[in-house]
């Protein structure tokens, strides 16, 4: 499996993603600079976490307009698997590859903590190694993860099984109390209608190790290997 990780000025979780991909695939992804116009021939493109362009103006807004994103959009339309994590998710919504927007956390504070996620769709290229309604434990680390879309969009996402992860408790309860950032309907991760572009705020790439941090994130990277 060949993969690429996109690097913007201010990206800072690229090595975490690279480690996770390398661990799952045995192959190191290529790092692609934001100013490039072309992408190599790859099966997976990861847009990692961080503060692209300082997260100034709106998170992900400037990265979404960078030259490389035009190439990413083309690949997305051609069906290449694209995963945006955290800032990557924000960039995907800003570039229109995923619906909605990520707003400031309702607490207004940056929040770094482990949380449970309910896997609502285990039938995607990114989640096939999980079971439906499985609870996984991964960390979030963001200031702007408060997912917003209008009701029509939300209903459509839910109706089409495009909501992949929701913030929950250990028993899978999804409610205001388990919604750590104010996201509508506890949405933590969504996928596009074609099933090849996924965005999520939590960090599976920081949960790939049994000794620390847990290994619940492995399923996601293994799923991609399985699908490709």
């Amino acid at each position, binding site marked *: 499996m060949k993969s690429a990780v996109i690097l913007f000025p*201010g990206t800072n979780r690229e090595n975490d993603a690279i480690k996770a991909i390398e661990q799952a695939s045995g192959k190191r992804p290529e790092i692609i600079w934001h100013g490039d116009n072309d992408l190599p021939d790859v099966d997976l493109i990861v847009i990692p976490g961080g503060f692209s362009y300082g997260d100034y103006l709106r998170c992900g807004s400037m990265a979404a307009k960078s030259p490389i994103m035009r190439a990413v959009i083309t690949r997305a339309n051609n069906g290449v698997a694209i995963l945006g994590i955290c800032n990557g998710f924000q960039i995907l919504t800003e570039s229109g590859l995923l619906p909605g927007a990520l707003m400031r956390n309702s607490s207004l504070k*940056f*929040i770094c903590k482990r949380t449970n996620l309910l896997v609502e769709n285990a039938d995607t290229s990114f989640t096939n190694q999980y079971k439906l309604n499985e609870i996984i434990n991964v960390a979030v680390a963001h*200031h702007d993860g408060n997912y917003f879309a209008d009701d029509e969009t939300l209903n459509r996402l839910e109706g089409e099984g495009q909501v992949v992860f929701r913030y929950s408790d250990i028993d899978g309860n999804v409610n205001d109390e388990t919604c750590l950032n104010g996201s509508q309907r506890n949405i933590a991760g969504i996928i596009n209608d074609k099933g090849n572009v996924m965005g999520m705020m939590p960090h599976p790439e920081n949960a790939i190790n049994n000794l*620390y941090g847990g290994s619940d994130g492995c399923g996601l990277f293994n799923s991609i290997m399985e699908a490709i």
Partner: protein
Amino acid sequence: MSIDNVKITPEMIADHGISDGEYKILLEIMGREPTFCELSIFSVMWSEHCSYKSSRFWLKQLPTEGKQVIQGPGENAGVVDIGDGQAIVFKIESHNHPSFIEPYQGAATGVGGIMRDIFTMGARPIANLNALRFGDPSHPKTKHLLSGVVAGIGDYGNCMGVPTVGGETNFDKAYNGNILVNAMTVGLAKTDKIFYSKASGIGNPVVYVGSKTGRDGIHGATMASAEFDDNSDEKRPTVQVGDPFAEKLLLEACLELMAGDSIISIQDMGAAGLTSSSVEMADKGAVGIELWLDKVPMREEGMQPFELMLSESQERMLMVLKPGREAEAKAIFDKWQLDFAVIGTVTDTRHLTLKWHGDVVGNIPVLPLVEASPMYEREWQKTPKENKLDNDATTAPESIMADLVKLMGSADLSSRRWIWEQYDHLIMGETIIEPGGDAALIRIPDSKKGLAMSVDCTPRYVVADPKTGGMQAVAECWRNITATGAKPLALTNNMNFANPERPIIMGQFVGSIKGMSKAAIALDFPVVSGNVSLYNETKGEGILPTPVIGGIGIIDDISKAVTIPFKKSGEEILIIGETTGWMGRSIYMRDILGLELGAPPPVDLEEEKKNGEFIRDAIDKGLISASHDIADGGILVALAEMSISSNIGASIMLHRDQVEPHAYLFGEDQGRYIITTDDSDALLGLAAITHVHIAKFGKTGGDGLHISGGETISLAAIRETYEGWMPDFMAYN
């Protein structure tokens, strides 16, 4: 007319904080009247902040040697060998005054500054810590300051992608008018790729990189050393704004350039900006530097030479490159969208020569500027010793568990989760022990090695007995690192004190240095870097003496590291170290009885060392399943923390014949650990051989803390107050 053609008046001299005596020396050095720009340079270089004039004499007494030390104090940061060709580069630095004036930006730029000190030496920052002190929770400014400082530290470190893994936070009315924000950064470098500030090579280009220069914080360095008065709110425009995004780019660009071989020397622009960086580079290299100030990238119009020399605009570096390597270096900074400008050259004059569109506006001999910088051996007075408190003076409580609940929900002992959840403590994916334990532990990437880190100080001990307090701070830091199984390697320190011109304050400083030195020698825990912040005093009200110790240690195999949560029910709980029930200056005395009396607990360095070595050895042998050092609040607080973090209760037995129960449970004797094991025979055996005090204390299990034959309290009740205090306190802020 340029200000540099203006005649220097006595008012200007006074405004620059230069005393009559100092001005005389200045005239001798210059052999003429200085220009305004020169006067400004002397002013910042001779400020307390840059010259360490009150502290230098005493700092020289700190032990700085050890076979692990690659670079001690005197460079941007200390460097310690951790084997395998790798080194840890670390330092702590204060940003106290700026954080009081503008907590968010003050704290943020503090973090930015210390990170630059680390990566200017060629190390990639891999962890941040911070030690914070605020005023009384009921003081009207405390909430605002706490929320701003934490957000500032978080936003800067989070954006940089460096995990903030540890720290400490205290509240005391002594900090009402002077909070303390001490930030520590730990970086990883290769031992053969450490960069220093020493300039060399006559004719080599002096290069400016990073953000543009504005009128930020002009006279900030002198402000940082001046005692506050009621007008300090007026000094506001000197606040600097941090741009963590620019710093992230600067970090990546510098490390990329450092991977090659074009840099001769490099120095961050911190306090006193271009002045102190150029003087330092010239001084270290015994060369001169000529700067063409009109070439400095400027953010504002009409900037004058002295402003360029004094500006504290953030996110800038100064380097000397090998000749002919400018283009290669510029390409890297262009790629990262940062300014790059050749602004001068190395000369053989040993002068700092400043030119402005070709005209000389300053010409100062570097050596006298540095060497004649004042050094005062200020008068000092010893803090009178207090007697050991007689425990009979403390009345036994009605309910030990009710007092425990109170302590666990107090400002100083309650959970700091509200703070560290605002810090990305997981980025880089190597965090093994997260905030909330003793030391933080991160893995050294691609290895089995772990790096333990802690920052510690107990000011209420230091104020009662500076020497003991200094020893205790070092010992506690060492102990925290030891409790994870790591071997402490070296420390950095941040000396935060009130006005040193008062002999009693200077005495606190001197006592602390003596205590720290003694402990650092005994524990083979040398000082490799540090920072001094004096004049933390407002209208005669000084802070508690606060010598913060930041330490690092290494564990060779992270799979052996031990954490504080209990691991399972039915394990034996033991106390290592002797418990005499020392109540003087304990949190219990202060917060439950409202008394701040008596001598603080003595630090027996022999015992400390022996007990620590025992812990490390037992952890290495796999005999310990959970361990925690016993500090503020004594045994019972430590036990409660282990229980809460694991959700496993404990039953304990008291040896009533020895010490009164409350003194036994809440006393703060030093050098102790609380541990669990499933093989107590082996541990007892090992303790017997090494003559370590060890006492069986109880067993893990249940959903509460239970004193056999006595009270029980549920973990839920403790957790509620423990986790509740800070969120409640900070609600709607």
